[in-house]
């Protein structure tokens, strides 16, 4: 084998290797949220804030929030701005979904009305912020839709753990939203496969 042929083979192999490496090294932000003065670290939204000069198309897939056994399920969802959420009623009682404001802005209040068991009503969330979901028949019911600016977000599990997948390398601002706690902000640098973050949410 001459040198030229060998060099070509090495170059091809290297390219393939780099391509495979690029695929398996999908970056993610992992971490844990701990709380102070709050009952639970569950259902805290963690998301990458606005990225300058970067816009994202609204997702086509819908997110579903169910009303079952007089509970919003899931109780907290984070969605990218522009996402359509389908509100499903799986109960044999009358429900409705309304919100009195979005992040305190009462001009964005909305009421979806009433629909029977088995049916759903969609709503596209184009305004950033937290949306407190209520039912005017069952005031103990509550849920939240947290509308965030990027597709990089997650909601913590009952232990406060979260994973945000497919985050391109770069420097970002990570933010939290919690029903009972104050928002937190933390810078994060995604360079390797996994960026690990520890956050604290306080009351």
């Amino acid at each position, binding site marked *: 084998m001459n040198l030229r042929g060998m060099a070509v083979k090495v170059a091809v192999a290297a390219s393939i290797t780099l391509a495979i490496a690029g695929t398996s090294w999908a970056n993610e932000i992992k971490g844990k949220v701990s709380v102070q003065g709050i009952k639970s670290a569950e259902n805290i939204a963690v998301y990458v804030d606005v990225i300058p000069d970067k816009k994202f198309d609204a997702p086509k897939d819908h997110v579903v929030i169910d009303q079952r056994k007089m509970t919003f399920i899931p109780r907290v969802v984070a969605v990218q701005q522009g996402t359509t959420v389908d509100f499903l009623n799986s109960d044999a*009682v009358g*429900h409705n979904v*309304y919100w009195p404001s979005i992040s305190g802005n009462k001009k964005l209040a909305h*009421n979806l009305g*009433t629909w*029977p068991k088995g049916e759903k009503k969609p709503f596209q969330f184009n305004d950033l912020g937290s949306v407190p979901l209520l*039912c005017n028949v069952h005031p103990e019911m509550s849920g939240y839709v947290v509308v965030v600016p990027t597709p990089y977000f997650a909601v913590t599990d009952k232990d406060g753990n979260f994973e945000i997948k497919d985050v391109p390398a770069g420097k970002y601002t990570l933010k939290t939203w919690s029903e009972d706690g104050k928002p937190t902000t933390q810078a994060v640098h995604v360079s390797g496969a996994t960026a690990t973050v520890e956050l604290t949410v306080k009351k």
Partner: protein
Amino acid sequence: MTDRVLNTSIAAILTAVVVVVGLMLASVPKTSAIPAFSRKYQTSCTTCHSDYPELNDFGEAFKKNGFKFPKDDESFVKEPPVLLGSKAQKEAFPGAVYPGEIPGSVPVAFRYSGNFTYNAKQPIAAGFLPRTDLFVPNTFTVIGAGSFGPTLSFWVDNDISADGANAAAALGDGYLKVNDLGHVLGLPKDTLNLRMGQFELDLPITQARTINLTPYDVYSQASIAPVSNTACVIAGSPGGTPCTTNNPLQFGIPQRGIEIGGYPNDGNFTWSLAFVNGSNNGDALRNSKDVYMRVSQRFNLERDPESRNAVQAAGPTGPHDHTSLRFGAFYYYGRNALNMDGSLFPGFGTVHETFYRAGGDFRFKYRHFELYGVGMYGHDQDLIPNTTTGLGYLRTSPVTFTGGFAQAEYWIHPWVIALFRYDFVDSPTDFSNGISRYNTRNRFSPGVQFLVRANIKVAFEYQHRWEQPVTLGSGSTVFFRPNGVVSGIDYVF
């Protein structure tokens, strides 16, 4: 006390009440106190009550279904019941006790209501009545209710305190109910139920679970013969003979007995037939039993056909009570008995006086507005001892009355309810007995209620009453109106 000082005192008290109400409204709720059903389903009082204890459409359906959710009850129960035998034991019956269940936790709720009253000044000859009274009436009630499985339900309530215009100062309702007994006979659902014990009759408008601070006047009406013997004469009988009618029955007080009834067609039609002691909530005072029956029909006026058949109607801002109009009719018949021991009219034997109450009712609901009313006619046979023969009794003019009430309610907000009620009772015998200035007693009662929380209420009611006579020491008769303001706090947990 001068009028100015009095007005200042009243203003200070009212200001204090307003401040207290304002503070209560402004405070941020952290937890909600919840009675028995709220605990069982982990849901707010407002799921069933529009202004507790008044029920909304869902609450009515819940109650009619034996205190269970109208559909898929098991999926909503957060406190599973305790099984008193596995379901397979049904197959072992009658070789084993039929399996049942009891609520997972003791289904007890408590209710306190204490009122502040301000009374209009009245002549001292009518008796001293303080101008104000803090927290009277004062009532504390224990309530236990729930279901013993799919077909049995129960309710027990007892007013522990001795006060309370609506308080029985004793057991109120205490009954066991067999739901959907008609299922055994192949009848449609809820066509036939059976209730036994002590209970409020299937009244057109409930008094036991009224939101009003005072009872309906016609429900408290008892039939008493004219006191004046000169009124109790008939042709040919000597004057001075007393009339006999003395019927203690009050429509609004629970009775002891057995009731069958049903609400087929999703409760649009209701019927009931009860056999009761007729001695209100006391022991039987005579051998005969009374009978009460009622029927009603609701016309559901919701336009959306799918929503019309649902428990609650679908609205643009959420489910709400159906727009509806209900009409009903009722009839109560009994035979009162007096002088069984001969102490009232020695030698004349037992007095048997038939009586009846008959009437109709309506209820209209539209969104945040309700209007309802009852009209009733009461008729009691009246007898006079036959002093001519010394035996038996002669008939005289019956003791009759007509009466009723109409009430309007409007939800200004889900937590602010404005009320206006009109009561009237037209009783010639009461007039002759000096109860009122005229035959007809009218009362106007505007009011407002605030749901400070789903389980805490502050209520105000003004009563503009009929004129009552009082004889002064000089022998002259003056008339006064015992008007007053009743306000109070009420909470359940």
